């Protein structure tokens, strides 16, 4: 049975597209057939994060307007078997598509794929409404910052209002060092504030920037970040995967050490 998952956040720049690319790569490496749908019409980016920007012929608006079949617009990933991208249109805008059309497109894709992952645009306007229209469940990406968490809370409210009840949280770009020093909220802090289930924590790592430079997602490559994405993929598939021990609260001795160094 196929599942439609929307990756959303409210706030821009928290890592929705990178997360989508990595989860798609990870699920494909776990032998699932996956299509990633870029719903950010006018601001297409998933193609460059995956390194597939040179292969685009048709896009999502072409499919919806009937200029081509879905299979013609979908691009097969270079490295990963079973992973496909349905790119957004770059020269159109969000009003080119409506929620009913998105629902119909997603239903069509269900026939051929195990997972349909929708990369949602930032904001809560029409692009968001289009992206969530056909979704069964959501992954909410946030960073441990006040602005991102606040927007995530708003998004959770909107998802529930639109009858999407299975909403899980990904805490992205957690800086372990800052967290240990009490200068960044922990994943537990964010979960407590939002009262929503966590599905994964992705630590901050410069490797992500490097990976995006070359258009090669990290999932499943053995790095800490790559492993974090793979664990999220397994949890999406329903496996119980223990959490990486990242949330080390500052212990007494560390505090004591700081006390002496401060004086």
């Amino acid at each position, binding site marked *: 049975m196929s599942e439609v998952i929307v990756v959303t956040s409210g706030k821009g720049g928290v890592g929705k597209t990178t997360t989508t690319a990595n989860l798609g790569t990870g699920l494909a490496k776990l032998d699932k057939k996956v299509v990633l749908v870029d719903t950010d019409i006018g601001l297409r980016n998933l193609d460059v994060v995956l390194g597939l920007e040179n292969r685009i012929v048709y896009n999502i608006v072409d499919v919806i307007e009937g200029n081509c079949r879905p299979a013609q617009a979908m691009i097969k990933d270079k490295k990963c078997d079973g992973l496909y991208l349905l790119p957004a249109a770059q020269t159109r805008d969000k009003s080119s598509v409506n929620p009913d059309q998105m629902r119909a497109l997603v239903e069509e894709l269900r026939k051929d794929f195990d997972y349909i992952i929708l990369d949602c645009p930032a904001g809560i306007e029409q692009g968001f409404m289009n992206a969530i229209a056909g979704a069964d469940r959501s992954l909410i990406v946030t960073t441990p910052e006040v602005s991102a968490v606040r927007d995530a809370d708003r998004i959770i409210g909107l998802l529930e209002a639109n009858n999407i009840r299975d909403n899980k949280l990904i805490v992205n770009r957690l800086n372990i060092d800052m967290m240990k020093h009490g*200068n960044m909220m922990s994943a537990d802090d964010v979960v407590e504030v939002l009262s929503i289930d966590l599905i994964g924590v992705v630590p901050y790592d410069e490797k992500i920037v490097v990976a995006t430079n070359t258009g090669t997602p990290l999932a499943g490559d053995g790095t800490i970040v790559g492993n974090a994405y793979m664990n999220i993929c397994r949890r999406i598939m329903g496996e119980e995967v223990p959490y990486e021990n990242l949330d080390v609260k500052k212990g007494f001795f560390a505090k004591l050490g700081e006390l002496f160094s401060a004086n």
Partner: protein
Amino acid sequence: MGLIDFFKKKSTSDIAKDRLKLVLVSDRASCSPEIMERIKNDIIAVLQRYVEIDQQGLDIKITKTESDADTGSTGPALYANIPIKSMRHSD
């Protein structure tokens, strides 16, 4: 930095968390400061029919209820602390 300051000092992550909790309560209740002001004025107007209140000392805000032991869920609650100067006795 002295010893006492150190133990008193809140980490910035705790400050972030506290600020978030407060801002989310008003976001969720979708209650603007303007409406808050009107609620406050209406409460004062009603109370003043019966008692004389200390308008400087009053504190009215929307906070979060203590989490429910069964469900663990929290909801918004109107918190009001209104000092009474004297009771008005009118028969």
